[in-house]
């Protein structure tokens, strides 16, 4: 990485605060400890600031002093800390936050790994307070009610500003707990007053900025049940969704009777020995050998109705008219009406091996139909994630 940076001329900036050392092979390597220190300096919000290399090394050296059930050190140099300083570990390393064994645990003091829900969505909505109720703060907190996240204004209002050192005051002026580079605001809130720097609010059950503030059932665009489409329709079309026109209801209406031709639910998923799209896994002969062909799991009932046997080639066709040529694995693992395909294959296109199009030496050892050749239109109503998990299909003997 450093050699890469050097080649492109930004090595100096890349290792600005990091010592560069020679590794065993004589390469220039940025010091791993300094790299962690740099991470520590910039991750106040997510609580990766307390895990300094010195503290982690101390934990490794004194592993035997930790209780194996609670993961908490009993006595010794790490007394009261949780093993490995589990995230989030707030504040500077010097503040000695013990790490958080369980999130949102109000039965513990914040300096013992306790906490509460974060005030991250403002303090009120439609005239209702979003902050936590009376008496719901973490154990030993000076503020036993809901409170917003800490910043310089809140500290001054509470009269806690003068607990900062002069240097901390200079750094924290005009800042909040996330942007104060000294960590002073976090220290005063947590160590001196037992309060969580990110505030104390209610858990949010109504997500008012989502299309469905509370989750409700909506039939997918490609539904196997036209009757349910009428009862639980999807969202209206969106003209501008992440800047793009995105279809929901009009698409669902258009294909609502498609299950007559494509009656089976096609779902996709993972095999234990594979990773992601499988391109790397299938390029490793040790792993490629384990599953050498793309297959579809089909229930014996559906297989018998369609007239094929275990191990034969079949066509899996989806509403886009895409056709996948795969081996049939006839198994009760899937229920009648469901076809399962692993998503780890690629390199075939609608029945044809694309081997000749790979640059020499670049083809994976094992190739097969990619399941996403067959998946259909549809986008998540919040994130716009594409629907590549499931759709409808039909199967026939190849």
């Amino acid at each position: 990485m450093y050699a890469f940076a050097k080649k492109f001329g930004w090595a100096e900036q890349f290792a600005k605060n990091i010592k560069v050392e020679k590794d065993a092979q004589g390469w220039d390597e940025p010091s791993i400890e300094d790299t962690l220190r740099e991470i520590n300096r910039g991750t106040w919000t997510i609580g990766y600031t307390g895990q300094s290399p010195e503290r982690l090394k101390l934990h490794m050296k004194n592993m035997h002093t930790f209780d194996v059930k609670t993961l908490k050190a009993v006595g010794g140099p790490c007394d009261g800390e949780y093993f490995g300083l589990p995230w989030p570990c707030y504040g500077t390393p010097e503040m000695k936050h013990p790490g958080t064994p369980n999130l949102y645990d109000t039965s513990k003091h914040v300096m013992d790994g306790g906490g509460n829900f974060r005030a991250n969505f403002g303090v009120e909505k439609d005239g209702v307070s979003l902050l936590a109720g009376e008496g719901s703060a973490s154990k030993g907190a000076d503020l036993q009610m809901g409170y917003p996240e800490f910043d310089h204004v809140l500290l001054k209002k509470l009269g806690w500003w003068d607990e900062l050192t002069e240097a901390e005051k200079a750094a924290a002026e005009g800042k909040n707990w996330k942007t104060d580079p000294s960590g002073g605001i976090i220290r005063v809130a947590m160590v001196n007053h037992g309060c969580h720097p990110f505030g104390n609010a209610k858990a949010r059950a109504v997500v008012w900025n989502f299309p469905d503030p509370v989750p409700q059932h909506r039939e997918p665009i490609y539904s196997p049940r036209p009757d349910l489409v009428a009862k639980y329709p999807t969202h209206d079309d969106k003209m501008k969704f992440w800047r793009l026109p995105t279809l929901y209801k009009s698409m669902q209406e258009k294909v609502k009777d498609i299950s007559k031709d494509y009656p089976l639910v096609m779902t996709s998923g993972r095999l234990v020995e594979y990773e992601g799209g499988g391109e790397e896994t299938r390029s490793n002969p040790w792993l490629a050998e384990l599953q050498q062909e793309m297959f579809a799991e089909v229930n014996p009932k559906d297989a018998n109705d369609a007239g094929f046997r275990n191990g034969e080639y079949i066509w899996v066709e989806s509403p886009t008219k895409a056709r996948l040529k795969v081996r049939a694995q006839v198994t009760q693992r899937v229920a009648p009406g469901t076809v399962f395909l692993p998503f780890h294959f690629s390199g075939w296109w609608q029945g044809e091996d694309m081997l000749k199009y790979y640059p020499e030496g670049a083809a994976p050892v094992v190739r097969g139909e990619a399941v996403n050749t067959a998946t259909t239109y549809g986008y998540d109503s919040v994130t716009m994630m594409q629907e590549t998990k499931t759709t409808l299909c039909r199967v026939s003997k190849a």
Partner: protein
Amino acid sequence: MGRMKFLCDAERCIECNGCVTACKNEHEVPWGVNRRRVVTMNDGVPGERSISVACMHCSDAPCMAVCPTDCFYKTEDGVVLHDKDKCIGCGYCFFACPFGAPQFPNGPAAFGARGKMDKCTFCAGGPEETGSAAEYEKYGSNRLAQGKLPLCAEMCSTKALIAGDADVVANIFRERVLRRGGGAEVWGWDAAYGGGERKQERKQERKREGQS
């Protein structure tokens, strides 16, 4: 020293094939040769079970008995090994073995890519100088001489596969069975949510809900 044995706990094996891959990696076993494989019974049916099988290092090994060139030998620790220079690759041991352990790799040479017959060595190498290139090429690495157990067992993620002196292996397994109780029944809804009385209670609850 006792007798080296493998044990595969079918209640724990998740058919991840990690043992197979570890073996291939450790010994550079070529494509098509499986010193170890995972066998699944009743695949896809509730109650399916998998076990990982390799050479069982039999006390009275049929392969040894039938070998026309007597190329097999047994170490003091009960590991069944063979001399690939004496082996003629006839496959008689393949007939005799109840577990399909002997492997006969394809290869460019008359007798295959990896000698004539290849099988699990319990990571104990073979009759060449310990740790030598010749030993590695013919038999794979010799972990036993390094004071280590077979890699397949040592890296098993669920500790379904355990290896070592039969006494120690038996003790581990006995303790495990005592602790988990239920034996082969530790599977499915009842194991997770309770059968018997609790199941009855749930049924009655559902009934009440249905009536109201």
